[in-house]
């Protein structure tokens, strides 16, 4: 081993810019990376443009004969989206470095403010952009009800609305930055507050669809809103943004390394998982974060009973005991059930929100993905031990009965969520049913939801059993228009499986919306589409698909089940 030397390493103080230049020297992006990023931005702009065109056109045309509920619903949704984005920002830090920067530059003699300056700048820019968009969108929602808003001064109104939105977003994000160094005291209350705001906004949006006094009051309140009031709001919002930004800037000098280190590592994992659409890893990370903060009381597992082999998935059989972990996990997270219940109003919101135009396809997509997401809440243990059969072997559960026992909870969750979602759709009159059977339409749609649950279970289980993506070892399939990664194909296949499983439901929803459009054209709502036969077909299809999946799926822990991309 060498002896030490006394060395004068360099004669100038370290500068963050110099160090960053060094770390990026070897990481110059190739032209293809820039092309991909530019293309992504272009596509995002096109989509965003399409999204904004209709509300903006409505503003510029000076239309005043819109349904009274749209303004209130739209504003509430904008507020909910804003709160959701702040929740997302808070869950990612919001102020972070790249994990490598956090490892090597944070606990070093480098100036902390110099190190964090760029992160704060990027965060502020992102907040300003998102806030400005939400501000413009809010004006588009409220505009038709504001008497003083005329197309002559529309540009000024839009500019000020964007500035107010951007400034408020900057202020809110910078407040989160100021709270970040005290995670134990502030994170939970801030998260709870944002959740309450988002949930309340969603409830107001839904309530406005039927309790007309709410939107009428909102429309009355918006009526006398003037440009001068918006200018005053702009000044207040700008002052708040400047104050929060200066406070955050001042805090950078002594921003605590331990918080930044932990948040940067966490955000790095989430960004990586999101970049590869790695839903499994995102779920894994979220679950880790949830349980790490909690102290639990150990409870006994259900008593194991010597069930005969012909009843492999009966209650208290080894397979069911294995599946019990998901039931217990859900019992320990009642908030998940509440969120699921609240999210069931999503399809109703999509049906008439923002544009006031019923969109059957959008509704069917929300129902499909919502049902899969609900079923996935019962697949946590399946996701965890897909490649680890230790517990199953310890319990002596056979692989296929274990898989079957684990299908029960996701099937119930999906069925319950779809039943509530369709019940809300039917009770709000968005979808209707054939009156021939004499059964109330709401009950028919609820029954269809219950029958559809198992149809989505195979999709959720397949997604859960797909191992976290290792992009380094995965190849792709040449599609002619480029290489499509196998992990993406696997996920698309899982969703298609779900679509097949609930095809009668999707067809019923599309048919009902077709009827709705026709009804609007004729000035009334006509019963359309759904009857008892559809429900029976859906129930049979759901049972058949789930059974087929359970029969052909490779058992957990088998050689074919431990591949990277997909499980059969």
């Amino acid at each position, binding site marked *: *081993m*060498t*002896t*030490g*030397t*006394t*060395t*004068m*390493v*360099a*004669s*100038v*103080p*370290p500068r963050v810019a*110099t*160090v960053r230049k*060094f*770390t990026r020297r*070897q*990481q110059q992006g190739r032209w293809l990376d820039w092309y991909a990023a530019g293309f992504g931005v272009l596509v995002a702009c096109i989509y965003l443009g399409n999204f904004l065109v209709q509300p903006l056109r409505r503003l510029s045309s000076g239309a005043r004969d819109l349904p009274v509920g749209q303004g209130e619903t739209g504003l509430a949704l904008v507020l909910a989206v804003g709160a959701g984005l702040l929740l997302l920002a808070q869950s990612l830090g919001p102020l972070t470095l*790249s*994990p*490598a920067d*956090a*490892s*090597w*530059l944070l*606990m*070093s*003699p*480098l*100036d*902390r403010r110099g190190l964090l300056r760029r992160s704060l700048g990027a965060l502020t820019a992102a907040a300003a952009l998102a806030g400005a968009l939400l501000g413009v969108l809010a004006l588009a929602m409220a505009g038709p009800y504001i008497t003083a808003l005329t197309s002559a001064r529309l540009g000024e109104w839009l500019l000020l609305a964007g500035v107010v939105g951007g400034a408020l977003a900057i202020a809110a994000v910078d407040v989160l930055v100021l709270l970040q160094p005290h995670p134990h005291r502030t994170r939970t209350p801030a998260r709870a507050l944002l959740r309450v705001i988002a949930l309340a906004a969603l409830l107001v949006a839904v309530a406005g669809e039927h309790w007309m006094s709410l939107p009428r009051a909102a429309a009355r309140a918006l009526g006398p809103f003037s440009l001068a009031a918006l200018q005053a709001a702009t000044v207040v919002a700008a002052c708040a943004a400047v104050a929060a930004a200066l406070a955050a800037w001042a805090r950078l000098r*002594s921003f*605590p*390394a*331990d918080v930044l*280190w932990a948040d940067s*590592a966490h955000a*790095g994992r989430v960004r990586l998982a999101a970049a590869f659409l790695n839903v499994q890893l995102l779920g894994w990370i979220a679950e880790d974060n949830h349980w790490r903060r909690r*102290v639990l009381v150990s409870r006994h597992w259900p008593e194991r009973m010597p069930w005969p082999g012909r009843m492999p998935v009966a209650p208290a059989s080894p397979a069911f005991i294995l599946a019990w972990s998901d039931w217990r996990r859900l019992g320990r997270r009642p908030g998940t059930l509440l969120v699921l219940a609240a999210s069931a109003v999503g399809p109703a919101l999509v049906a008439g929100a923002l544009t006031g135009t019923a969109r059957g396809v959008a509704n069917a997509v929300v129902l499909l993905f919502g049902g899969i997401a609900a079923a996935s809440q019962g697949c946590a243990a399946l996701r965890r031990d897909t490649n680890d059969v230790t517990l199953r072997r310890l319990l002596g559960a056979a692989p296929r009965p274990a898989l079957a026992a684990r299908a029960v909870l996701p099937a119930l969750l999906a069925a319950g969520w779809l039943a509530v979602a369709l019940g809300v759709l039917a009770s709000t009159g968005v979808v209707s049913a054939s009156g021939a059977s004499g059964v109330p339409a709401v009950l028919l749609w609820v029954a269809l939801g219950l029958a559809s649950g198992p149809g989505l279970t195979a999709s959720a289980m397949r997604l859960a059993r797909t191992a976290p993506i290792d992009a380094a070892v995965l190849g792709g399939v040449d599609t002619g228009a480029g290489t499509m990664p196998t992990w993406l194909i696997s996920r698309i296949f899982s969703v298609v499986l779900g679509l097949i499983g609930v095809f009668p439901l999707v067809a019923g929803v599309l048919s009902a919306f077709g009827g709705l459009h026709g009804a609007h054209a004729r000035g009334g709502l006509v019963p359309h589409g759904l009857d008892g036969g559809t429900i029976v077909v859906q129930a049979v299809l759901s049972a058949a698909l789930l059974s087929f999946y359970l029969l052909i799926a490779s058992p957990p822990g088998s050689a074919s089940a431990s591949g990277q991309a997909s499980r059969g």
Partner: protein
Amino acid sequence: MVGVSELVVDVNGLRVSYGSVVVLEDVSLAAARGEVVAVMGVNGAGKSTLLSCLAGLRRPNGGSIRVLGGPPRDTADYWRRVVLVADLPTWYPGLTVREHIELVRMTSAPADGWCLDPDELIDAFALTSRADAVPLTLSSGQRQRLSLACALARPSDLLLLDEPEQSLDAGFRKQLASLLRESYAPSGATVVMATHDLEFAEVAGARRILIEDGSATEATT
């Protein structure tokens, strides 16, 4: 007897808890300039927690900590004098082994004191054949060597090591222990390390502190 002014680490009545779980209770510890101290104890005894407190990354619930004459401060000046090697770091995917070492030297310039230049470090930590490799391609043991090499690439007054022997082969453990005892500590710097390896601690010439049931006692055997 070590004078108070010579103490690099001076901990008195330290108390740390995670919620209702008390990990450290009335822990006192002192380390002088040029001394190597090995903190030992069973898994979960609180060794890593103690190092986190010394690094200023965890605020204690009670007691006092003085490091280099004051409380841990999480400032540029503090991190110029203190180096922590705890969890394996995240590597820059586009930088080589040598460049990681050079990066550490760059962040602490200008620095006057004992350290090894990159060539010496690469040689001493047996990374010569992998000097131009990216760390992602190294074995876990080689990555641990690189972490330790980076820690010695810049001068410091206090080196905090959390289980440095992890993933290292027996031969290199002895080499590392010798380096700490014969080169680093004689330069006037102090080492406080959490370790399970009694032989490693002995070869490093460490004074051993045993943490048991939340309290620290000097190990005599």
